């Protein structure tokens, strides 16, 4: 069997799956239960300055029948006494010496940072995660994302921590910034051992249409919260990649954001994460999801012949390039496999209305046909098709040519003027605007319209 264990910047863990600093790690009870279930590590709910929480703290985004595709919270850091948290950290470490217990921290002054690092260290924490990410409640007090958005302040605090820390220090970054590599570099300059990202994204998760207030509603009003859950994974993956590829960051990355199953975890790892943290999925489905995460990861590693996590950390990074490096000679076109088509015609209407009018209907069948000369290979039809492998994007170039925008720029063959002959869409056929009129009307007239003979 593959070896799932990791050594993350000096923090060891039987597998790369950690619970993120959040409600599931609020107590020793929860963390012990999670370790008992199979989680490899836990980042304790942030210890720090005293807070008071409000009632009504979470909001969710539903998509059709799926709940919590997005999730947000306005909860603050731990509101439990520091001594209780520290005592429970000790208990957990005694019972689970091989599991990773990381103390998430958020305080203000140099002295406070020194004190809380020392106390956590004494309690047995295997490392620290500095919470520079929380985008609500704490940032207004000059902490959380307020720090993460100021690289110089971030660096200074990391330096304070490094003055006393004898265990690895992870800096947790906020995505509420235009370039995440700036705070990442500041973390490195400050001497941090690793970074973790992303924290939640500042959000309004929805508005109550009857009460005219944002969710979650606290006595008729609300505030922005921090967004997470499956919906944020694409944003997290991009930021993980940005940090992993940046030549001046060069720190181990703990990937966070939208991880619900093993596939999500592998994606984070392929883009450079060497541990992953999970919160929303555990809040939604409980700690039991760890069985699927571990089993899926193991199976993937067996099938790919990977012995350790490090065999594929960052393995997709060489293939993540700037747009200007992509081969413009590569050409795919849609191909409809008629024997699989069920005739929903979503591809037709998607291409007609949302792309390049490269699919036509055919008499006598509901299966549409590709107009190859119009198809730019955008993928849209294959994405909307509800049948697996019914529409494939087949390669049409012979694979021998390679030309990028960068190369064309160097060769001075790029279009530069309005109406430039060299522009891409210049010779691409589009229908005359007026040809659109009446096109919707050939559809079966629904309902009353049919009785009246009008639409």
């Amino acid at each position, binding site marked *: 069997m593959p070896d799932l264990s990791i050594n993350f910047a000096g923090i060891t863990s039987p597998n790369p799956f950690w619970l993120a600093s959040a409600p599931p790690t609020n107590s020793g009870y929860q963390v012990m239960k999670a370790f008992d279930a199979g989680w490899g590590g836990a980042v304790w709910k942030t210890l720090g300055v005293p807070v008071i929480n409000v009632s009504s703290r979470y909001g969710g985004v539903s998509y059709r029948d799926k709940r919590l595709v997005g999730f947000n919270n306005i909860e603050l850091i731990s509101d439990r006494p520091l001594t209780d948290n520290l005592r429970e950290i000790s208990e957990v470490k005694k019972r689970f010496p091989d599991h990773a217990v990381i103390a998430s921290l958020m305080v203000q002054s140099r002295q406070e940072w020194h004190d809380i690092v020392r106390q956590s260290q004494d309690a047995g924490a295997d490392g620290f995660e500095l919470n520079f990410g929380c985008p609500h409640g704490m940032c207004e007090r000059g902490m959380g994302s307020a720090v993460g958005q100021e690289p110089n302040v971030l660096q200074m605090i990391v330096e304070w921590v490094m003055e006393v820390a004898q265990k690895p220090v992870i800096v947790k970054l906020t995505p509420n910034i235009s370039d995440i590599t700036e705070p990442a570099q500041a973390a490195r300059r400050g001497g941090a051992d690793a970074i973790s990202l992303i924290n939640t994204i500042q959000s309004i998760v929805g508005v109550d249409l009857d009460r005219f207030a944002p969710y979650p509603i606290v006595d008729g009003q609300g505030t922005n919260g921090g967004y997470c859950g499956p919906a944020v994974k694409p944003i997290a993956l991009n930021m993980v990649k940005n940090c992993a590829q940046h030549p001046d960051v060069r720190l181990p990355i703990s990937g966070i954001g939208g991880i619900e199953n093993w596939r999500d975890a592998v994606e984070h790892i392929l883009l450079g994460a060497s541990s992953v943290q999970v919160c929303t999925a555990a809040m939604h489905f409980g700690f039991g999801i760890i069985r699927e995460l571990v089993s899926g990861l193991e199976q993937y590693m067996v099938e790919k012949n990977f012995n350790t996590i490090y065999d594929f950390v960052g393995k997709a990074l060489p293939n993540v390039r700037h747009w200007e490096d992509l081969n413009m000679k590569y050409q795919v076109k849609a191909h409809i496999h008629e024997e699989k088509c069920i005739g929903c015609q979503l591809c*037709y209407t998607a291409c007609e209305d949302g792309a390049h009018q490269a699919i036509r209907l055919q008499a006598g069948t509901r299966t549409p046909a590709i107009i190859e000369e119009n198809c730019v290979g955008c993928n849209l039809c294959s994405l909307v098709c509800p049948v697996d492998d019914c529409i494939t994007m087949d390669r049409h170039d012979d694979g021998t040519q390679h030309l990028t925008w960068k190369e064309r720029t160097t060769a001075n063959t790029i279009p530069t003027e309005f109406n430039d002959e060299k522009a891409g869409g210049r010779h691409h056929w589009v229908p005359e605007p007026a040809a659109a009129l009446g096109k919707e009307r050939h559809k*079966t007239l*629904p309902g*009353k319209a049919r*009785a009246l003979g009008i639409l």
Partner: protein
Amino acid sequence: MAEFSTPTTAQEFAQNFAQLKPNMSRTEALYESSRCLFCFDAPCITACPSGIDIPQFIRQINSGNVTGSARTIYEANYFGNACGKVCPTEVLCEGSCVYNLQDVKPIEIGRLQSYATTQAITENKKLFTPGPANGKRVAVIGAGPAGISAACELRALGYEVTVFEAKAQPSGLTVYGVAPYKITNEEALAEMTYLQGQFGYEVRYHAPITGRADLAALEAEYDAIFLGIGLGKTTQLGLPGEEKINCVGAVEFIEELRQRQQQMQVGRTVIVFGGGNTAMDAASEAARLGAESVVLAYRRGKEEMGAYDFEYELAKAVGMKGLFNVAPLEIVGDDYVAGVRFIRTVIEDGRVREVPGSEFVQACDMVIKATGQAKQTHFLHHIPGLELDGRGRIVADAAGQTTNPQYFTSGDARNGGAEVVNAAAEAKVAARGIHAFLSK
């Protein structure tokens, strides 16, 4: 021991006749509506005789606009809830769902349709108002799917409408002729109350129009007359012994069942004549009333039955046994039915031929004849100039106008017997035809 014990209470009746398409919960409706692909030029719309914009109403349910969904349905079909429940959706909208081609369960369109309309009915959501009065009056004969649909559409166009109904309740076959496991009386009638509350047509119950004098009065008082009279009683087969007690027509049997429910009596051993959907209903109903044996007797082979496959399967599932290629010669017994004398048949060149010497008697204590309904030709002959076709159906043009220009028609009386949805759809067209005629 019978499959079903004889129901003696309303609760037991409801159990034996459990709804095939029970009402959906909000959660189920959300889940089911989420599956709809929103096909372009959706085949379900094409398959619906009333052309309901199905992807639209499903999308409205999914986005929480259930009232809008009900409006989409009712704008196309005033019997929206009834059709959601009694339509043969397996061969119409749901049968055409593209998911069938992927071996995925089709969207439960009928149940979603009833979900939206039931909510509108329950909350009495006002979707329609009568059109501005145009001073013209239309009489509608028959408060069935055709008559009520015509009445609604005519009211929307501003006509004053009076519906004449021979029976005590509206909605026609929906409450008198459909199997009780398809829709309950309460549901059928609630939709009628809902529609009448919005459109405000008058219905006169126990008001049969029977002869020339009645018709002449209507002709004098109303600008147009809509015939939504449906079909008549079960056709007599002309068999010896057909008058015996417990030899009944399926239409009459079902009508009594719908009204008397658990008070309805059924034989212990029942033979049903016929091979159509009504025969399947009658057989299934007899079994659910506690009959120990239900035999379907059909003159031809199983494959030639007119019934939809799903109706046949449904009847078989409650214990009906098929007896094919037999023709009844006589109902035997004294005053009561004691059996049927059959003769075996073969099909030669598409025709039924009796096999000499193959007669036998099958014992039973009840016979239900589901062998077709008579046309109401005797009544129709009182309408001057009204032409019927060779099968007794009223001849009408595309706008529903008969050969007597004052009379319009749709539904079973015109199409010879089809689904509720056909009557509802055709009546809208006929109402528009009346409007065009009276607007000249």
